[in-house]
């Protein structure tokens, strides 16, 4: 079923989608429904809800009105059919693959990823019998060569964290489509304000909403957004969606719910059993964050562009990898896939290696040394000694987290203040 693009601009959707006035009170700010359970009208209504015959709320592990409002907003911003919110970005990654994977099945994964994702997929997934096959992120053919009859998904990031490297979304989406395997894209670093992977052929999008979407470093959360366009129906590779579900008396999700099948399954089975539910308060904070997303991303990107140029000219800096710099190997792909800026998280190498890297993060005074990105505040991190320290040396270098690497998430402060703080820290660290 063709789904026309929204008649509204992204700025409007970011403020209005999912949050009409409260029907009972008229409250214009969407209420926080801090309730774990919801009364049934009668036994028949309860039965209809449990049979998935009627939409409605049963228990907040599955659905909650405030969480659902956020889900609708994020599905709308990404141009998807539906969304499932989770307690964190990591939970979203597991939840995204849960309907697709089974013991012995494989997910092809880009080797340039957030270190936590490499750990999750490379190690913890093995406990479920899920095999992650890592391939060269910059080479779409590598994804094609890694396909086997057991491949059930391909997983990439739109902008790789921490390196700031871009992957060729459209080419990798074509590999996935030709193999009838869903492409899952982590769009945390770009946000729908800069990039909408579903428009380039991705099937599922995941986010850590903890980052730019909530935007202020105060609400953990994640989300999985489904395009509604992957052909699950009749596809024996995806029995969770294409064969009868015994616990729902034999309904087949892909038949009964059509293009809503994946999102219905994610609530009725994945959240029901994994329990990684988003808290209503965090959903509300994230709803509010979304309302200023486009404004914030403009300033994040503008500041980041200036910081990248400043660092590129700085004598204590060996190199800068920012897709917004014309000399960046990712600049071409970034111009194709990003609109309105090049993101605000990137890496640079400080002269003096590991020790100098540690000194910089200890010397900054305005910039915060934290393991987070996408805050109003400028944040800095030395991945080799923190987020990526659980990886091998080889893995660290492969994913852009070598000993001299610093990751910066440029915030919304007055840009001269950011530059001044970086300058004094770099000078102190390398003198």
């Amino acid at each position, binding site marked *: *079923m063709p789904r026309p693009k929204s008649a509204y601009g992204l700025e409007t959707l970011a403020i209005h989608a999912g949050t009409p*006035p409260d029907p009972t009170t008229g409250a214009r700010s969407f209420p926080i429904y801090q309730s774990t359970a919801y009364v049934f009208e009668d036994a028949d209504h309860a039965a209809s809800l449990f049979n998935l015959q009627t939409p409605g709320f049963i228990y907040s592990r599955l*659905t909650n009105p405030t969480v659902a409002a956020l889900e*609708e907003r994020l599905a709308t911003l990404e141009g*998807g059919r*539906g969304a499932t919110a989770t307690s964190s970005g990591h939970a979203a990654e597991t939840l995204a693959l849960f309907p697709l994977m089974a013991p012995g099945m494989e997910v092809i994964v880009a080797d340039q990823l957030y270190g936590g994702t490499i750990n999750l997929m490379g190690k913890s997934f093995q406990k479920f019998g899920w095999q992650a096959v890592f391939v060269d992120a910059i080479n779409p053919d590598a994804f094609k060569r890694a396909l086997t009859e057991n491949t059930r998904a391909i997983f990439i990031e739109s902008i790789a964290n921490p390196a700031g490297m871009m992957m060729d979304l459209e080419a990798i989406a074509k590999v996935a489509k030709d193999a009838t395997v869903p492409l899952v894209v982590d769009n945390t670093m770009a946000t729908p304000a800069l990039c909408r992977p579903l428009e380039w052929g991705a099937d599922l999008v995941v986010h850590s909403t903890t980052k730019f979407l909530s935007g202020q470093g105060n609400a953990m959360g994640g989300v999985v957004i489904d395009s509604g366009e992957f052909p699950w129906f009749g596809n024996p590779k995806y029995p969770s969606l294409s064969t009868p579900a015994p616990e729902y008396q034999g309904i087949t999700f892909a038949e009964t719910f*059509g293009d809503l099948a994946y*999102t219905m399954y994610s*609530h009725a089975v994945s959240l029901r059993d994994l329990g990684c539910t988003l808290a209503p308060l965090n959903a509300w904070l994230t709803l509010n964050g979304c309302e200023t997303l486009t404004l914030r991303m403009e300033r994040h990107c503008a500041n980041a562009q200036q910081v990248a140029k400043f660092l590129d000219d700085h004598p204590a800096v060996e190199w800068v990898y920012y897709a917004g710099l014309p000399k960046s190997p990712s600049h071409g792909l970034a111009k194709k896939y990003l609109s309105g800026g090049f993101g605000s998280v990137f890496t640079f190498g400080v002269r003096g290696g590991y020790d100098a890297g540690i000194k910089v993060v200890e010397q900054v005074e305005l910039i915060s040394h934290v393991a987070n990105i996408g805050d109003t505040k400028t944040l800095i991190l030395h991945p080799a000694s923190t987020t990526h320290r659980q990886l091998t040396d080889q893995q660290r270098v492969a994913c852009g987290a070598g000993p001299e690497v610093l990751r910066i998430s440029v915030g919304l402060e007055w840009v001269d203040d950011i530059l001044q703080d970086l300058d004094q820290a770099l000078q102190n660290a390398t003198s």
Partner: protein
Amino acid sequence: MNLHDHYPDSYLRDILRSVRTIAMVGASTNWKRPSFFVMKYLQRKGFRVIPVNPVSAGELLLGETVQSNLESIPEAVDMVDLFRKAEQAPGLAQAAEQIGAKVLWMQIGVRNDEAARLAENAGMQVVMDRCPKIEYSRLFGELGWHGVNTGVLTSKRRRY
């Protein structure tokens, strides 16, 4: 783009607000079938749904007697909803016209432009490749409860 490639929300909303009695052709007595879900949901929203299915004619389904065909329905019908293959739609469009229905609705996956033309020439409104349950819940606020993109933005309190 013609109407049947993309229905404006107002078109669907007006239909769902105006009809009260729906004849559901292909209604199944098996509760796991999508038609059962749709019938039960629409009943709960206040619609009268009359099931039509020659296989189970005379049986009781959700409190209604199953009719063998549209012509055997003893009362006035506002809308005919088809859970049938697309090639059967033209004949059913003519039957819908004969019993005075004002709307011909074809479920998801069912589109037959000839049937649509026949019905429209007879003054009926036509919807194809959609589900009245999904559209009702989308347009009147409930589908968002499951995190679905409803495409509806409003600064008004929702009316049912």
